[in-house]
């Protein structure tokens, strides 16, 4: 299609501001951390250089390797827990609730907490799990515990509970979408053919909802991977995440090149997972056709 000069001008007018903004505030900042990740720390700040020392340090120093592995592990557990909660729940919503109104209301009830302060949702678990918290005082009150215990807070358990709580709506959303898309007559057809409910689930429902599961797992995994607030509130030393280390490199530890290298690694991990899941989802869609 050939554009007239006039159209060209108006196109340029529409485009210029977004493109300028994206360049200045997205492209250049990412380019800067990428560049910094090769710089060298030199007290009190850093000097330009091109060396892989920061990356080498991250992958050889057990301290950083451990944080990376722990972050990956916690993100995986959170994704699994979220799936465990979200899948049966969403299945119930879509296939067992007959009234569309009730279904929509319940669905909204799951999504709404997403928009209620993230910080407060993490904070409330601190008040629940703490040694002087709601859970402990409840257990003491009903006589299960003699005295408050500190096993609930400041460990990976509290991290997983809090992060699952915060991110589970991101698992429900895509699974809900994928289940709603399944034609009801497909399941009926399976039943008419004498296939039992369990096998129908395995052969029809599960494969058709795989894209939703993959999308949900990607969301929850990536969100957990980049989180530093839950760790700050309920994590303790055992719950330190990559994002916490990045924060401290840009703060107290004052090693911007190392912090930048960690940020780049995080960026690569997240983008890799997103593009992988994109591919899985797309191949899932092809299976359907």
């Amino acid at each position, binding site marked *: 299609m050939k554009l007239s000069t006039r159209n060209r001008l108006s*196109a340029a007018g*529409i*485009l210029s*501001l*977004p493109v300028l903004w*994206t360049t200045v*505030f*997205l*492209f250049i*900042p*990412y380019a*800067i951390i990428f560049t*910094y990740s090769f710089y060298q720390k030199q007290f009190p700040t850093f000097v330009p250089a091109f060396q892989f020392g920061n990356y080498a340090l991250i992958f050889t120093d057990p301290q950083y390797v451990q944080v990376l592995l722990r972050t990956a592990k916690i993100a995986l557990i959170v994704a699994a827990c979220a799936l465990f*909660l*979200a899948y*049966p*729940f969403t*299945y*119930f*919503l879509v296939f*067992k609730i007959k009234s569309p109104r009730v279904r929509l209301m*319940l669905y909204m*009830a*799951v999504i*709404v907490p997403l*928009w*209620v*302060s993230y*910080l*407060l*949702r993490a*904070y*409330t678990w*601190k*008040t*629940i799990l*703490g040694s*002087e*918290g*709601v859970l*402990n*005082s409840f257990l003491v*009150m009903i006589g299960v515990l003699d005295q408050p215990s500190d096993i609930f807070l400041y460990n990976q358990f509290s991290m997983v509970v809090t992060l699952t709580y915060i991110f589970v709506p991101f698992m429900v959303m895509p699974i809900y979408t994928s289940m709603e898309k399944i034609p009801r007559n497909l399941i009926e057809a399976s039943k008419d*053919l*004498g296939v*039992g*409910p369990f096998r129908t689930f395995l052969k029809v429902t599960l494969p058709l909802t795989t894209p939703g599961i993959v999308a949900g797992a990607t969301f929850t995994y990536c*969100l957990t*991977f*980049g*989180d530093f607030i839950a760790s700050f509130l309920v994590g303790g030393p055992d719950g330190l995440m990559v*994002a916490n280390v*990045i924060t401290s490199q*840009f703060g107290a530890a004052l090693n911007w090149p190392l*912090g*930048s290298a960690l*940020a780049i690694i*995080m960026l690569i991990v*997240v*983008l890799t997972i997103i593009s992988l899941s994109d591919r899985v989802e797309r191949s899932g869609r092809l299976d359907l056709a």
Partner: protein
Amino acid sequence: MTTRARKNPTTASTIDRLVERFSSMSLAGFAVLVMTFLYLPILILVIFSFNDDRSLTLPLSGFTTRWYVALFSNEDLLEAIFNSFYVATVATVITLIIGVPAAIALDRIEFPGKTLFRRFVLLPIALPGVITGVSMLNLFKLMGMNLSLETVILGHATGLVSIVVTQVFARLQRMNRSVEEVSADLGAKPWQTFFLVTLPNIKTAIIGSALLSFTVSFDEIPVTFFLTGRDNTLPMYIWSTLRRGITPEINAVGTLIVLGSLVLIFISVRMLRNPGN
């Protein structure tokens, strides 16, 4: 399979029906548990904001509104709330100024580097806030800018443009193009068509995504954490009080925030759900 069904249709279907009923019941029970998991913590937050005791422990000691009274005489808190309104309002206005044209461009203009542009605009939605925060901190330091509420605004706007772009773009894609063509055929100038035909059609998507941006900005921490100077936004204020320990005052702020977000969400969902009119 047909043979199996034919062989023993009644027993098979009876068993299947039993299995179905059992699974329905256990699923319903499970759903109740999930809802409890989602809402009990929020309920606890609200309940303890009215509890007449400094510590957050059971049993409850009595009803009070003094934590709310204390809030309204807390100067720092009021200032933080004001700051958050300022940041969220300006950031939302910027996201619209950038996001709406970006969505229009992605929907109907072909230009070199379009794919790259789309990737970059949508990147902040995919990437952890910590990366947006750190990278923009680097930019501002390099430019010699002092951190302030204004740098926070720039950070929020950059992070939230993607919300506006995705919502408005989705609406534009669903829009009936022939209406615009009719408008052009009737002799309307392109800008007239835009303001009289296109804009009214995407109005609710714009308002809805603006409300979402506002809510997210009001609540934002990871980006704010890196870009704020001496002034605190509300979440950063809560964050810094949390370091000093837990108080029922935070529960009172929390309850008000929950209430506020619910109202905003209710409005924005309605906006995004009903296209047109």
